């Protein structure tokens, strides 16, 4: 076995893991772009996610939010096939059907910190690459913390 070190994008590309039907059948999950949501003056965190043509990926595939709370995603399908998104949400997951060349919106409430995944639950879109992450940073409120001195973290 040989292992490589260095630029991860280059490694993934050279290994044929960053696209459709190269080394693998689909695209390795978690290999897309990283994006950051913007928090509006109303406290809602907004971002846009697109599905590019023939890539079977949500772009960005990793969306970072500063903390848990109200989220508004604009979802755009630029592909020439139909997809959808089933998204985590407190109360019940939400689903939106995205026909070719369509645009919609998802309003979500999610707690943080923590990571949630969502996907296009049609065909095997999720396995091919249409699985993406919503990552919430921040800390829990002080009232939820343990009464003890600060502890070391990894």
């Amino acid at each position, binding site marked *: 076995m040989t292992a490589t070190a260095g630029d991860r994008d280059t490694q993934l590309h050279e290994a044929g893991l960053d696209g459709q039907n190269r080394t693998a059948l689909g695209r390795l999950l978690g290999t897309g772009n990283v994006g950051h949501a913007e928090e509006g003056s109303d406290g809602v965190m907004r971002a846009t996610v697109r599905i590019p043509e023939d890539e079977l990926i949500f772009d960005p595939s990793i969306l970072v939010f500063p903390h848990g709370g109200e989220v508004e995603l604009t979802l755009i399908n630029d592909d020439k096939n139909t997809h959808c998104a089933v998204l985590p949400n407190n109360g019940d997951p939400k689903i939106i059907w995205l026909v070719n060349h369509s645009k*919609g919106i998802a309003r979500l409430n999610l707690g943080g910190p923590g990571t949630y995944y969502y996907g296009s639950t049609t065909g095997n879109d999720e396995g091919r690459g249409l699985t993406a992450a919503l990552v919430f940073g921040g800390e829990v409120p002080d009232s939820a913390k*343990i009464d003890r001195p600060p502890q070391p*973290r990894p």
Partner: protein
Amino acid sequence: MTDYVDAGEAVPHKTLSATKGSAPATSDVNYERIQNARSEPENWLTYYGTYDGQRHSALDQINRENVKRLSPAWVFQAGSAGLHSGASTYSFESSPLVVEGVMYVSGPEGKLWAIDATTGEELWRYKHASPYDVSLCCGNVNRGVAVGHGKVYLYTLNAHLIALDAQTGDLVFDVVNGDVRAGESGTVAPLIVKDKVIVGSSGGEFGLRGHLDAFDAQTGERQWRCYTIPKPGEPGSETWPDDGEAWQRGGANCWVTPTYDPELELLYQGTGNPAPDFDGGVRPGDNLYTDSTIAVDVNTGEIRWHYQFTPHDLWDYDSTMENVLFDAPDGRKLLAHADKNGYFFVLDRTNGELVRVFPFVDRITWGEITPDGKVTPKVYPDEEGVPVHFWPGPAGGKEWTHMAYSPRTGLIYVPVQEVGATATRRRREFKESIPYWGAGVAVDLDDHYGFVAAIDPLTGEEKWRWRNEYPMCSSTLTTGGGLVFQGTPTGEFVALDEETGEKLWSFQCGSGHHSSPSTYSVDGRQYVAVPTGWGGWIEGFLPGLLGAAAGDALFVFALPEA
């Protein structure tokens, strides 16, 4: 290119289902009613059925004579889809509650349903979103809900206490109560007492400082927090190193619902293992209040007394499991506790005095406890890198799954696990959110078995046992029909004769049992409900069945209608 097609707005998944969206109104479940839950056996109002934890119902329509005709009335499939936290470890561990024909049951992954208890029709659902990366020491599980004050209460994997409207499932409040960055989580079924909702911490393998909390049932405001590891200078702190940091991450979590005595106004809470589990060198002393029963004043959160079952634990012998309250024939108020360490304890629940202790498993090698309660450790991982085998293993002679008492026989029916383990001490530094065991542990893949033991708590005598090829990993239930119900790890749900242990009936549910069955009646027809779905911390309690079929179905049984 033309303008985009308008895809509209994402809608809740449940709108694309047959879920009705509301449940019929029921009469209010308040403190008085829960105190008298035994008087309305048609309902299962609280986690153990009654505050005393006896898990007994007086319902007797299904009995020893007719149980052979017991058949499925309906099945509810919880379902599982997509990536979710603890995907490999989800387990349906709940105990269904029933109020006037409406069942409230929680599943793994933050799910909660109201179901028609006669037909299985889904009335409403709620799913709390659980982060994929929340630290779960022992599975993607939830042990149940509390119902009362017009609400349903759930403690979520990411340690939120949420309250829902019991009729609609709409969110009433959501309070963050634990630090997921510290490895804290929530799995316990809440308990309603007076105007309070009680929950405790999960995360025993992550070096927390355990706690039990009471919240205002209407507003979600925390009324008190009881830490189960004392700070320096507090009572019990002398059992921790006075020059170290061990107490700050000492463990003693409260991940199983307490029982409660309304006359004494005391909660009986079992506490979890110390941290690190197996490396006692970093925490010399008895390490109070780990591995204990603590009697907590429900009004103030103060600890009134404690009894520690395994001082300075080196085997991961949590004592979180239930404390069953019962009275002796002379009226003495007693408490029964079958500990992971393989010994069965009977205490005076007014003061914590030891009444009786005796072994309830066949193989105990870790140490010995004399009849007067003296504890002598014998085998433990004290040398770095040297494997040590001991019985019972870290899942214990009895895990969290509950025993049941029958006032008809005076016996307690205990699900017993006979599984050993090998631990090799490996010291490590503490870091928040990283498992803090202090050892490598391998639980035995073979040489295991189990049984249901019928034990007289007044004498310690085992009246009978029903032996099973595999350890028993689910809760027992006793009924007025003279039956003891028990699920097996291989999927059978069995009914035993309370007097003899004879197996009278069984049904193969298709996946192992790791839950707490309950019983109820509607319009004069008795039902028995049991969630099935093999999972949780299998590598700890029965790794020999790590490859067994998963599942997530709730089975409900009844006698055929005439």
